[in-house]
């Protein structure tokens, strides 16, 4: 079970009270008349399925009934942050990767973490020359 912080209620609640609603930050095309079929299809049907950091829309269905966003790691299921509607995430795949890099934790090609590997050691192990 997740224990999820609702940013509106201001406290952690059981996962049972929430519903996931898919990928967050999907904006409806501003000008539907001049949107190509491809763009419209992308908007309607295509969603990201990342291995790692994902921004998701959730609703506190049995509670305050408000929608909000969760940044979640799809491998560890760890909830990295929650934030209200209209706000932007402070943790992204990029920010996490650079933070880990500066802590000496290298994110490898497959999204696997190589703990303790320095920048150059990781590159050497992949056989790349700088």
């Amino acid at each position, binding site marked *: 079970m997740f224990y999820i912080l609702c940013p*509106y*209620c*201001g*406290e952690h*609640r*059981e996962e*049972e*009270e929430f519903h996931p609603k898919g990928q967050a930050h999907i904006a409806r095309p501003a000008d539907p008349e001049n949107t190509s079929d491809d763009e419209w299809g992308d908007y309607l049907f295509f969603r990201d399925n990342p291995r790692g950091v994902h921004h998701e829309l959730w609703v506190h269905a*049995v*509670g*305050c*009934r*408000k929608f909000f966003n969760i940044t979640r790691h799809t491998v560890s299921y760890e909830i990295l942050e929650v934030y209200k509607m209209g706000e932007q995430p402070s943790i992204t795949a990029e920010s996490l990767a650079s933070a880990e890099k500066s802590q000496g934790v290298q994110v490898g090609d497959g999204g696997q973490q190589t703990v303790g590997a320095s920048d150059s050691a990781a590159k050497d192990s992949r056989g790349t020359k700088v």
Partner: protein
Amino acid sequence: MSNAQQFDTRPQGEIPVESPLAYSMQRSGAPKAKAGTKVTMRERPFLGQLTLRGGAIVLDEALREVVGLGLPGEPLGLVQDQAGERSIQWISPDEWLLIVPGGEEFDIERRLREALGDAHFAISNVGGGQTVLELEGEAASEVLKKSVAYDVHPRHFSVGKGVTTVFAKATVILRRPSEERWELVVRRSFADYTYRWLLDAGEEFDIAVEN
């Protein structure tokens, strides 16, 4: 003054009124208090219940003027008047539940609409759709622990707090107006289920029903 149409939902004259639990109490029984009774349940039917939606500042002002109560300042807050007869509870950032003695709600709604004028708001009379159950006694929180996943330990659930949460397989608005008393606002259609669940959960504490 808003131009919303309003009507008094209370029947006039000789039309009989029955609480959502009238049938349940007959069919499932209403156990009397025994020597070992540690929890008492009672229904408080026919209360006036209004859902207020809109901006906190305008609603707070109108409510102070009409009912003499201010909105709770924090999420999950529950505020009552001195007598404990009128209460206002935070439900969501733009939604509050006002409970008043039965019969007052029609007039309060009209005066709130007057006070709110052209502000952006909505008031719904929800009294016909839900009822209030009370649990009182030393085992009241024990009965709740068997029914909700929410943490009802006094350290976490202090007096003056209220939450909407999962109760068994239904939902309730659970609130704590005083040290020894808990209130459950339940939907009319779930009232029988909730009542029978509480009878079952309270059996080991010799639950009594007062009505």
